[in-house]
């Protein structure tokens, strides 16, 4: 779960990391009022969950009321890389002499958290990591001890941060690690961490991704989740049903169990000349209602022309799956889109006895099921 910038900044500021004065606004007058209160110049920043907002026109500087109004009008309501902008953060524009990067993430290869510092802040840090990996100092942290202050200092000095701000940057990094640790962060980043001519450091942006699996013990952050949701109606519905779901651009709907098998089903749809409409993993051990919900999800997508169900039961049982499919389809006088079912694994024979074959097309193998679903989708398009 990714927090919005304004949410992450609140979390960082509460922990003592310096952030610019800012206010959230959702209409033009609100932006102007906020700017007057903060004092010009201000930055007006779209609050959507995508990177590269500046380049895409989602961040604008305003020196006076006219410019603030203009910025607000162009950003509010805009479509930014597929996301509708409903809110902007109006923020004190910081006069800086340097931009740094600091971040904490989990290094999955090492199985340990890693703290990162770079003097090449303010740009796409992934590109820096790719082209000039030496420009990012890295310090692995033992998660059972946490980050020692010397480790923060070491990363800061290794990165070549100027001595005049090294203490303050170390302190920001230490706080960032503590937050990451306490809040079950997946990533916590400040890019840029601006350095002013008075040798102050200030977090001009804030990124905080929370480990979804840990939300059960982060009730305050879980509350922010609704506000932070992506804005895509189908993806919101998937959140309600608690599915791993990704909407794609094709017309063959895909439901399966287990991420690897669902991805494989997508790949096979592509292999046989079709285009996947979505990734939907019902997860392990899905009961009948969950299966019915999955069908409801995929039927709700207007782009879907056919659906392929690929279940290979381990912890999931074929009889439950069949019951769910029947439940979902028996409510229709006419099935809205053809459904191809392939059941294998635990209790698949029981499932095949239960499954109402008048409502679906049954195939024995994954390959046949996918090809049939692609054919159906092609017929609809033709």
């Amino acid at each position: 779960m990714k927090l919005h910038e304004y949410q992450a900044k609140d979390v960082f500021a509460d922990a003592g990391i310096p952030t610019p004065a800012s206010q959230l606004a959702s209409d033009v007058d609100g932006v102007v009022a906020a700017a007057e209160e903060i004092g010009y110049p201000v930055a007006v920043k779209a609050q959507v969950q995508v990177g590269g907002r500046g380049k895409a026109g989602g961040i604008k500087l305003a020196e006076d009321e006219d410019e603030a109004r203009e910025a607000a009008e162009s950003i509010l309501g805009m479509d930014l890389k597929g996301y509708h902008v409903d809110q902007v953060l109006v923020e004190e524009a910081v006069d800086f002499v340097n931009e740094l990067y600091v971040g904490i993430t989990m290094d999955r290869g090492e199985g340990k958290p890693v703290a990162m510092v770079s003097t090449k802040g303010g740009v796409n840090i992934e590109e820096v990591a790719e082209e000039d990996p030496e420009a990012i100092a890295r310090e692995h942290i033992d998660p059972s001890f946490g980050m020692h202050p010397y480790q923060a200092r070491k990363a800061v000095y290794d990165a070549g941060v100027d001595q005049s701000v090294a203490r303050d940057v170390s302190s920001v990094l230490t706080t960032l690690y503590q937050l990451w640790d306490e809040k079950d962060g997946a990533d916590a980043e400040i890019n840029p961490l601006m350095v002013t001519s008075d040798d102050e450091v200030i977090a001009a942006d804030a990124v905080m991704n929370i480990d979804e699996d840990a939300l059960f013990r982060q009730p305050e952050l879980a509350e922010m989740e609704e506000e932070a949701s992506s804005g895509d109606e189908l993806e919101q519905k998937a959140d309600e049903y608690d599915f791993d779901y990704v909407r794609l651009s094709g017309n063959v709907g895909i439901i399966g169990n287990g991420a690897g098998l669902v991805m494989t089903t997508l790949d096979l749809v592509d292999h046989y000349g079709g285009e996947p409409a979505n990734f939907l993993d019902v997860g392990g051990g899905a009961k009948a209602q969950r299966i019915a919900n999955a069908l409801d999800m995929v039927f709700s997508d207007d782009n879907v022309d056919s659906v392929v169900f690929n279940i290979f039961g381990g912890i999931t049982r074929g009889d439950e799956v069949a019951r769910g499919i029947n439940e979902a389809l028996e409510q229709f006088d006419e099935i809205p889109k053809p459904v191809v079912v392939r059941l294998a694994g635990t209790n698949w024979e029981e499932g095949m006895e239960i499954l109402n074959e008048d409502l679906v097309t049954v195939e024995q193998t994954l390959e046949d099921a996918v090809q049939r679903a692609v054919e159906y989708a092609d017929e609809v398009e033709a």
Partner: protein
Amino acid sequence: MSVLVDDDTRVVVQGITGGEGKFHAKQMMEYGTNVVAGAVPGKGGQEVEGVPVYDTVHEAVEEENADTSVIFVPPAFAGDAIFEALDTDLDLAVAITEGIPTQDMARVNKRLSETDTRLIGPNCPGLITPGEAKLGILPGNIFSEGKVGLVSRSGTLTYQVVDNLTNRGMGQSTAIGIGGDPIIGTDFVDALELFENDPETEAIVMCGEIGGEDEEEAAAYIDEHVDTPVAGFIAGRTAPPGKRMGHAGAIVSGSGTGTAESKISALNDAGVPVGDTPEEVADHIEEFLA
């Protein structure tokens, strides 16, 4: 010979009184696995499916000589359950639980490096040596005894590939689902080493997916150390960059590594053919065994 597990393995099931724990303890026993105890705090003294339940893993080890644990404990408590398994010096702990917070697993990972216990998982289907024992939730009926070692990050994809192999008469020596989480115990390299040293295993299937660099590391290891022929499969070729596809690990960073292409080409460079479909993987294995 078998890899990691055989019919002498003495299993304690952590979380045996829960729905999944109970169902799969029974399934494991029906398959022939020697389940000797359960461990559930507060449930000591009960019996489940004829198996005595203890409050702690320590007791299960003392009373029943358990040497292996299979963990069906809910995610909030699973990290602690793995610590408990590690604290009793078991030979092997298999964590089935999905959704354990990553930071808990980072702490487990640290502790793991200080013990001799091998961990498989979490978020995995477990492992099976057909005809001997299965530890976890794999559907036993699709497996058959044979010479193919299989290691996979995805449970259901494992079943798919096994089904393709079994249907064509190619049985398995051992199949290991290592799990799809960012931090896992046994990884591809560990499993490949086990198969390379197992005289029964004559060919290996390695199923990977987008995200992380484990497959690239495995390819380098195969190039250097593995003589047994390996065929691969990589799921997620059509996954859009930047989207999380179910598994926490399955995110393409867009920085060149971790993509299906980078994994496939690393494997190809190491002499490993990668199938476009699970059926093609079976084709490659058939050629190896011919």
